[in-house]
Every structure is written in C-alpha cells, then in structure tokens.
C-alpha cells in the first residue's frame, strides 16, 4: 500500500448531495452544449476503475456527457489540454472546459499569453469545496486530513466570470494553513539549512518531468532542458542537473505560475515544488506588486521591459 495518509475519523467537510448536484449540473450543461453543437468537445472528469478515483476525459457526444462527474478526486487542472503542447488530445473548434477556481487562474494566464482565445471557450466553473491531497486515501471522504494543502488556503472557491456555474458552494469550515506555515518555517532557516533541505529534496528527483508535463505554462515546443547540442542543463539524474532543472523551472514560471500546485501533486517523489512556486510568487508581489490573478494580462513583470526598470543589480 502506498497511501501514507492515516485512516481517520475526521468528519467529511461536505455531504454527498453536494457532489451529486455539481455532477448533475455538469452533465446537463455538457449534454446541452454537445446536442446544440455549440462546442466540439467538453473537457471534464470521468470516474476511474479504482473506487474514488477520477481522470480527465474529452467528451464529444451528448451520450457520453452522462459519464462526467465531479468528486474530490477531480484534481487535474484541465486547462493543460488547451495548450499547444497537448493539442492532439482535443478536437479543433470551440471547447467547453470544467474548471475549479484555481484552474481558472491558469486559464487567465493562458489567455494573457495569447495561447487561447476567450471566444473559443465555454467555461463551466465549479463551486468547489476542495480536492484530495496527492497521497490521500481516495476511499475516504474529503476531510481535514485528505484535503489538498492548496485548498486549505483557497480564495477562489466560487469562480467568477464563467459561462456556467455548476453547483452551489456548501458551507465550509475554516481550515488552518499548512503550506504557509511550511514556507515560514523554511524562511526562518539559515541559508545553509535551507540549502540542505532542498539538496535533500532534489536528491530524490528522477527527472520523470511529470512536473513539466502537467504544467499548463510549460508549453514550449523546445524546452531548454531537452537541448543537447549544446546541452544547457545536464539531463542526467545527478545533483547538478537536478538542481539546475528545478531552478530553471521555478524561474521560468515566476510571474506566470497560477498556483494550481499540479507539479507538486504529480511528483512521484513527493518534492514540495509548490513551496518554490509560492516563494517566487511572494517575491513578485513584494518587488513588483504583481500576482497571478483571474484577469488576463499580456505581460508579467519578468517578461516586459520598461526604460525606467531598476538596473542597479547589474554590476
């Protein structure tokens, strides 16, 4: 057994009728859109073989719309499938997409970077109670122990400016932040201790690149880290290459990362990558008063140039 989460008596955060209602709403909207020919496909979630699991699906017929679900296992940020990196997974034409609030931030980012056009999308927003953590026992209900860290600090449970909202937000208890505390703990360390922490984390990295492949913003046709003539980043699973890869990843996503934390969820080695993303986001906020938001902006602070930019760091 891989599940490391303890079986717990912790009470469910929401009752089953909530999921039934959201699921029903998604199915009805998807069936309507497909029947009317308003979209070529609906990108949503369907149940997996194992009880309590779910996986992304591209549904193209009204009949299959009845397979769509929403459950705490619906963790994937589906906006990934709108990027050019995954274009062979979806049909051409207007697409409907099921999004949670955190995913919507990624959509806004992709709109801002001209990767997608709003008029080609029909956004089905979820009134979201939260999803499972990476290693949660999906046989359990969503509770204080099984909920993802990002959901404990969520500020976008009810996505705005969508074309359709599925479900109504249930009353949710306040949860204490976990990730913010972990980041604060790291910040309080000396640089040497922090270095030791990350060195240890990256030593487990096997360069499976799940973090890159699942990221909606890693859509480069030629990733710098795949180059070999000349090699920019050592490809081998070794300390130097692992460190370079994770620094390049964090820097390239600074000011772009939408905080969906999919990279951390899918890491088979449990490397807490979202701590890096979050630290970069804090720096961006502090230095440029910029944060990933729900409204598309063309350029982030690290991709734009102004004549009066501070250049004092150039020595």
């Amino acid at each position, binding site marked *: 057994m891989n599940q490391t989460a303890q079986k717990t008596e912790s009470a469910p955060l929401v009752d089953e009728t909530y999921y039934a209602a959201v699921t029903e709403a998604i199915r009805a909207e998807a069936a309507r859109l497909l029947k009317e020919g308003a979209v070529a496909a609906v990108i949503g979630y369907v149940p997996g073989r*194992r009880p309590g699991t*779910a996986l992304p699906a591209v549904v193209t017929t009204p009949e299959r719309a009845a397979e769509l679900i929403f459950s705490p296992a619906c963790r994937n940020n589906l906006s990934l499938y709108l990027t050019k990196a995954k274009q062979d997974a979806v049909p051409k034409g207007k697409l409907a997409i099921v999004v949670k609030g955190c995913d919507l931030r990624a959509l806004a980012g992709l709109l801002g970077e001209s990767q997608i056009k709003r008029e080609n999308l029909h956004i089905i927003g979820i009134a979201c109670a939260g999803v499972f953590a990476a290693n949660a026992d999906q046989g359990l209900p969503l509770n204080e122990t099984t909920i993802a860290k990002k959901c404990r600090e969520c500020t976008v449970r009810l996505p705005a400016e969508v074309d359709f909202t599925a479900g109504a937000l249930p009353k949710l208890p306040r949860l204490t932040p976990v990730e913010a505390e972990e980041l604060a703990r790291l910040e309080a360390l000396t640089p040497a201790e922090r270095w030791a922490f990350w060195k240890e984390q990256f030593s487990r990295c*096997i360069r499976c690149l799940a973090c890159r492949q699942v990221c909606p913003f890693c859509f480069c046709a030629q990733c710098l880290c795949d180059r070999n003539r000349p090699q920019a980043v050592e490809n081998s699973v070794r300390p130097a290459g692992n460190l370079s890869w994770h620094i390049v990843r964090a820097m390239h996503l600074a000011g772009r990362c939408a905080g969906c934390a999919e990279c951390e969820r899918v890491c088979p080695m449990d490397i807490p990558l979202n701590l890096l993303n979050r630290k970069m986001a804090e720096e961006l906020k502090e230095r440029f008063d910029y944060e990933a938001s729900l409204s598309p902006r063309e350029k982030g602070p690290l991709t734009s140039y102004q004549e009066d930019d501070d250049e004092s760091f150039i020595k």
Partner: protein
Amino acid sequence: MTVGARRCLALGDPPGRPYRRDNNLMPRTITAQNLQALIDALVGAGIRVVGPKRVDTLCLYAPLANGEELELNEQPRRSAKEAFFPPCEEILSFERQGANTSVRDPDLSRLPATVLIGLRPCDAAAPEILDAVFSWDYQDDFFLERRRKTTIVGIACTRADDACFCTAVGLAPDCRDGSDLFLIPLEGGGYAAEALTDKGAALLERHAELFTQAESAPRLPLAEPRAAELDLTKIKAWLDGHFESPFWREIAAHCIGCGACAFLCPACHCFDIVDEGSEAKGCRRKSWDACGFGKFTLHASAHNPRDAQANRYRNRIMHKFKYYHDKFGRTLCTGCGRCIRACPVGIDLAAVLEDINNNG
C-alpha cells in the same frame, strides 16, 4: 482466482536462470528481532545492505545503516530495479591532454557485494525478467556484474491496495521468482525463511545462529489483490493484430508524456546515453529514458515515427505484452501497480488490460 497461477510462464519458458536452484533446503524461521540482527551483522561485516527505508513522506530502497531502518509495511515508491540499473551511471570518462585523449572504463570490480532485502514478489521477479534483455546480444556488464554480486531476499506480500494486480500477470503474493532467500511473515512478527538458490543458502548458512529450525507460528494471510483475471495469451493475440486501432486514442490521448510510469516500473529498462562535460574532459552517462517522452523517437531529421502521445502509450503496452514476449517469451510487467498510482492523469494499466481482455 487461482493464486499462484503461472500464466506468463505457460506462454513459453523463460530463458536460462542464472543460478542453480535447490529446493531441498530445510525451511527455517527467523524472528523479527533477528532479521534486524541479520542486517546489523551484514553491515558490520562490510556488506552493503539495501532495503526499503522511510525517507520523509515516502519509502525508498536505500542502503541501510542498521536493521531498524528496514521498513516492510509500505511498498517503496521506486522499484528495486535501481539496484542493478541505477537512474544514472557513468559508463566511461575521457580527458584530453595535449594531442592525446585518454578514455577510461569504470572499474566494475569495485561494485560492492550487496544484499537486497525486503522485496515483495512484484519487485523480486523483475531483475530476472530483465536478465534476458541485458544479456541478449550484448552482455551489459553494468547490469550483470551487479546481478552477480547481489543476493535478493524476497518477502511474501501480505498487503495489497486497489492498484495491485500481480495475480493478473501470472505472479502471486507468495511468488518466489527472483528471490535467493524468501521470507514468509508469521503471526507474531517472525518469518519463515526458504533458501532457493546457492546464494540464498550461503546467506542462511553464514548466519545460521539467527535462524531456528521449525516454523514457530502460523503464516500470516497473503495479500489478495482485487485485480480481474486476465488471459495474457488472448491479450497478446489482440495486440498482434491491433497496432492501428482507435482504442489507443481512446485510452491515452490525454497522456501527458511524462516518465513517471516508466521510471517507477520495475521492468521498464530503456536508457539514453549522453556525453556530458566539455570536449577536454567529461564522461559518458547512461540514464533512464521513457517511451512516453515526446523526444524518445525523435529523429535528427525532425521526423518522429511516434508522433502522437497515444502512439507512445501504445508502445508501452506493446513492449510489455507483445514485443518482449515475442523476443524473450515473457511478460514485461509484474503487476506492482506503481504506474497506476503515479499516473498524473489517471491512466490505469490494469483497466487497459481488462478492457482488451474483455472486449478485444
């Protein structure tokens, strides 16, 4: 379900086993405390002992400093293949001095004698399956030298989760394939110990004082994976005729092309070779590679014969359940379930096989 059925072997005998088996050795018992003492004794004698160990939130195969570090309650996140086929290793180094370039091979005789302990059947069976590919036309000394120097202590599996499917691919929670010494958990914490090869017998005899003769307690119930029964012959027959099929897109168009499944797999063995360093000094390294990667079959001409992600996933299935079988008469999967647990987009190998089995 018939636990212990050997359907994969029924499809054709595996290639020659590297070690002589002698099943006449008496079974013995070792207490949990003495198992730790065994590890301590081995470590004390300068032998490298590698086994499941807790590292932060997960469990990994790692060198054990002492017996207490052995963690048998959780399947290690990565398989035991890395004990023979590390994620990265140097296969030669070079250095230019003036007009001459010197090339040096690593000294494989320095690889340490190792006891690899605590492998469930799904991990223990894999290295033996891989012997075929690493000793086929080319003798891969990096893999084979480690195989020669390693003794595998397998353990019967008493806990399965809903991703486990060893029974569906012809293995079983008490399958001895690949183990030199095999432990069977007993009630109360001890283990029955069976030596299966000369290596296993030698290990047992060298530390005979830690074992007792008779089994002191009943055996713990074995794990019962809830996997559906599969007809691997039928699956292979379907694969033989369905290289082109809409099925591949249906199940894998959403595959994101990472290497999590291949890297965690005990049987996936593809690697890439790269020269790293500078022209003046550097080395050639062999690193894990994965057929899910978009660049895996990318040609220098920019042509890619596996141009869509679904075609790359198809290769994963074909290699495990058809090509390896065509070439070596074996299935390249032990049903450990790691790919299922780790897939970022929920692709479930057992479900894919079930689909082919039922509808193919």
